[in-house]
């Protein structure tokens, strides 16, 4: 398991576009923006529906499961709060309940709780949360939930 993230070293000060998203984390709810007019879901929570251009936005609470679409292994930290966490695995996670009615996908970025030896493209993951006394919000993490999956792929190096 990667080392701890030093959350005391960050400040979270949501702007108007992010406030509702961060507030939902307090109840361990992970939201996707969803167009109130046409239903499109997307990530990240930026204003405006790229399909119908409506500015009316609602939120979709995800079930908290997904599949690793890609990943990297960070050995050299750049941010101070991650210096104790290396090596850590970042993933792009495809959300089954982020699939839109036109077939387009929604994928998010995710900080895994697992080590490189356990990670592969195609594996299923589930949402978990970090809690830190320095932060009023909960911090999303993801955990691998199976050792194998059809078509899984791993960097050979």
């Amino acid at each position: 398991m990667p080392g701890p993230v030093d959350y005391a070293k960050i400040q979270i000060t949501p702007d108007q576009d992010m406030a509702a998203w961060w507030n939902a984390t307090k109840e361990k709810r992970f939201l996707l923006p969803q167009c109130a007019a046409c239903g499109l879901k997307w990530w990240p929570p930026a204003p405006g529906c790229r399909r119908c251009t409506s500015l009316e936005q609602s939120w979709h609470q995800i079930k908290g499961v997904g599949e690793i679409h890609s990943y990297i292994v960070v050995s050299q930290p750049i941010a101070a709060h991650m210096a104790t966490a290396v090596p850590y695995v970042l993933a792009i996670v495809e959300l089954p309940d982020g699939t839109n009615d036109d077939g387009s996908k929604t994928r998010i970025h995710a900080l895994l709780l697992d080590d490189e030896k356990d990670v592969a493209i195609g594996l299923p993951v589930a949402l978990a949360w970090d809690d830190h006394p320095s932060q009023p919000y909960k911090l999303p993490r993801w955990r691998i939930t199976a050792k194998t999956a059809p078509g899984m792929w791993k960097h050979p190096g």
Partner: protein
Amino acid sequence: MGPLTDKFCIAGVGETKHMRPSNRTTHSMGVEAVKRACEDAGIRPQDIDGITSYNIGDSTAGTSIGSSLGMRLNYAVDIQGGGSSTEALIAHAVGLLTGGYCKNMVIFRSMNGRSGRRPGGQALSGPTPVTPISTYDNFNQLYGFLSPGQRFGMSCMRYLKDTGMDPNKLGHIAIAHRKHASLNPKAVMRTPITMDDYLASRWVSKPFRILDMCLETDVSAAIVIVPREQAYDLRQPPVYIMGGTARTMADNPLWNYSRDVIHYVAGNYGRQRLFGMSGVTQHDIDLTSSYDAFTFTTLIQLEAYGFAKPGEAGEYVASGMIDIDGRRPNNPSGGHLSEGYTHGISMVIENVRQLRHRADDTCPGWQQGRHTYDRAKGCRQVKKAEIAACLGWGTETMSSSCILRR
């Protein structure tokens, strides 16, 4: 061909040394680079009336550079951006000069990319506190997902899965560019490397090793652009601008990672416009320059612009094609991987020198275009250099390009 093909030329190029660190301001370096580019062209800085530049909040405005060189400007605009900005500003210059907004133009980049603002935002001393996490745009900071190497690594990893390419093929790009840098007196990293060296180099952000990643340097560089009728009496053989693209964007650029294929990069959307406007095909291109912030960004651009078939860029780079004596050399200067880092402008400058047949190597007659073509003696001139393609990269979803000819 486009309506402006060959109507404008790059008449002068110049730069400071690549320094680590410079101990200079971006103002001081910018003045030097612009002055050198004007000297190279044979134009007094005071006779330039348009200036543009690009920066990421880490540089000095063109108005200040112009003021220090006595310019009375009719056009001065600085744009935000790093990679792909050079080719975009070349297109911009062609439009402005056509419109009569100024009579000639200098484009510069000045950056302390090593001692000042480094890629990803960290300090020279190491990991640095991130700015407050406020916007959707800087949410990435929460996860330590900050640097270009991390972002493009995601696309590279998926490319490797989807194509089945042997990841070690990326090493051929690092090796070729380093060989080229060994022939470039300006380059920071000049010691040749082997595949063993590449494979022994440490991981920074898997799939990238340290030798997959560009240098960080403090440097300024500049380009002078004039209408072709102004170029005849100047000091250097003109290099004509055949066509280009200016920040072609892929679909959903706000978030690359929800796109159907995350490594289907912006160059795919610009390719037909580039070659259509320039009136040539890939077969006519003698040399390419890629934005080699990473080995992978070279690989994927060569594919996006149609020099290699989808999924086959690994074979392309492993075949020796991109070597200085290969069929279509790439980055004969050593590029960002081995010469130094300028957010793209230095690769355009190298193509200009190559097309003049005046690569600034150690051949005694290089300034007159006399080269030995003997690599053992340090010649860096590409043998056949009539037409070059500059493949600029901003991100997976942003690309600019241009085609130049002698």
